[in-house]
């Protein structure tokens, strides 16, 4: 395991910030850390990076206890903080060369690194002139500059256009799959998690409320894509095929959840054939989104549906 955090606790100025956070990340895997603002994601990352001393729980990095992080462990970690800050008067190349020196020198050509994140054409421009997206790319290059085994990325694709996001996704996937880099990704963008993550952890109010592999979590009954169907009749719910779950009902509106692998158009056709008189269909988000809202909801069901 690259990161193994069990029951982490942290109190700052008598306020409990983290209370039972668990996180497990192996090499070659991408872990998506989700949670609302103020849930404790960034603090969890700070604890993993050794910026805070925990008040309880255990933390291991690369299978070694990580109370006071060893320089060897730190050398193997690349960090991209939430705020992509630089010395604006330095050029991208100068900055990366300078930063790489803190890790004992340049591991591979800076030009290649800049090329990898799509900044080679502006390598000699002062960072002060960079757009937000370019700064995000440079922050990723900084995290990669010493060829780390573990990447910790806080909102890595915020500020990027769709093409830029796709490029970063591809880069992260190739790092994990081809180089065996472990990637911890804290994000608000569920699409990032959906596309990239092998494992998901959801933190709410300083506590891990859900952790597991994305396959496992998204295939659990009630966790898949959700739809709202308007029906003209009251069909027999037992005629629903396997992988389709009735999750609620309010008047003519029936709520169903689909496990991954179910093809919605084929399903509607099958339901119509078996007597379901469907007049309207509304998508209600993918499974991850639903799972996220379910896990981080304050009041639970807010629509007053009849829960089955």
């Amino acid at each position, binding site marked *: 395991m690259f990161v193994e955090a069990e029951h982490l606790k942290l109190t700052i100025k008598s306020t409990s910030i983290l209370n039972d956070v668990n996180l497990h990340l192996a090499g070659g895997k991408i872990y998506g850390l989700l949670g609302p603002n103020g849930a404790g994601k*960034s*603090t969890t990352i*700070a604890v993993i*990076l*050794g*910026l805070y001393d925990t008040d309880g729980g255990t933390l291991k990095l690369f299978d070694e206890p990580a109370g006071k992080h060893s*320089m060897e462990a*730190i*050398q193997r*970690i690349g*960090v991209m*903080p939430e*705020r*992509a*800050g*630089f*010395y*604006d*008067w*330095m050029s991208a190349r100068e900055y990366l060369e*300078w*930063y790489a*020196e*803190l*890790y*004992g020198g340049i591991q591979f050509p800076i030009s290649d690194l800049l090329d990898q994140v799509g900044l080679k054409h502006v390598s000699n421009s002062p960072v002060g002139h960079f757009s937000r997206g370019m700064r995000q790319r440079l922050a990723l290059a*900084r995290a990669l500059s010493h060829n780390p085994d573990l990447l910790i990325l806080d909102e890595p694709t915020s500020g990027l256009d769709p093409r830029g996001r796709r490029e970063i996704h591809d880069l992260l996937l190739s790092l994990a799959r081809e180089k065996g880099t472990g990637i911890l990704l804290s994000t608000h963008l569920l699409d990032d998690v959906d596309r990239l993550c092998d494992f998901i952890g959801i933190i709410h109010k300083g506590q891990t409320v859900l952790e597991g592999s994305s396959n496992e979590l998204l295939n659990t009954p009630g966790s898949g894509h959700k739809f709202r169907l308007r029906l003209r009749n009251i069909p027999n719910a037992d005629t629903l095929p396997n992988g389709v779950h009735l999750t609620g009902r309010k008047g003519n509106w029936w709520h169903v959840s689909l496990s991954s692998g179910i093809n919605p158009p084929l399903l509607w056709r099958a339901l119509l054939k078996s007597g379901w008189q469907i007049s309207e269909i509304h998508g209600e988000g993918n499974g991850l989104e639903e799972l996220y809202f379910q896990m981080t909801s304050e009041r639970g069901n807010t629509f007053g549906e009849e829960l089955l």
Partner: protein
Amino acid sequence: MTPVRIIAVKEYRALLKNQRGLVCLLAFSILLSAFAIVLISNRELSLLDNAQVVYMMTGTITAAGALIAVILGSDSYAGERERGTLIPLLTAPITPGELLMGKAAGIIIAWGVMYGLSLPYLWAVGASGQNLLQAVFYLALFGTPVVLGFGYLSMALSAETGHVLTALLNSLLVLIFSTSPLLIGPGLRNSAAGRFLDAINPFSGALNTYDAVIIDGNSFLAQLPRLALVVVWLGLTFAAARVASRHPRFM
């Protein structure tokens, strides 16, 4: 290169390559220029004894140097935090002590540059007198710990508060209080409270030594108690910076 040197080189380049650093040096230079021009344009001041003029210029250099050191020190940690560059430093393989030493070296470099800039001013006002060399020597000996001390004090506040403005305002308050002998003149200094403050105030220590050696021609040995005062000031402020920099505010 050692981590301390890598940080110090960055600080040096930030001073001489970054607009902000150059503007600080320009402000320092303008302060001294303004004072030098006041000396020749003001009839009262232009009549002062040459030693008196050199003494006043030496005091002004120390005050201006401390002011710039406070600005740079306040920016050292809090500025990095506010610009989003502190976390990459804290998560790099360098210890908090190495980061502090690099930052402290940055303040030393800045004072070195300011000291170099101030020499032409001392020469301009004091070349016709007999006390120029004393001024140059004692500015290095007493001005250095006083200026660096103010820089380290603001570094400590910068690391502790994480806000440039808060660190700057608090450091400036201490600086203004300390430089009051230069601002309020000898009247208040003759009171019991004034004498006590003079005895513990590093800035007064430096000023009194400048007065004693540049104007009165006193011996070096007689300055040793005041030298001890400014060295203790430097030690205390560096210790404060060391404590605060162990867990700087980063979020």
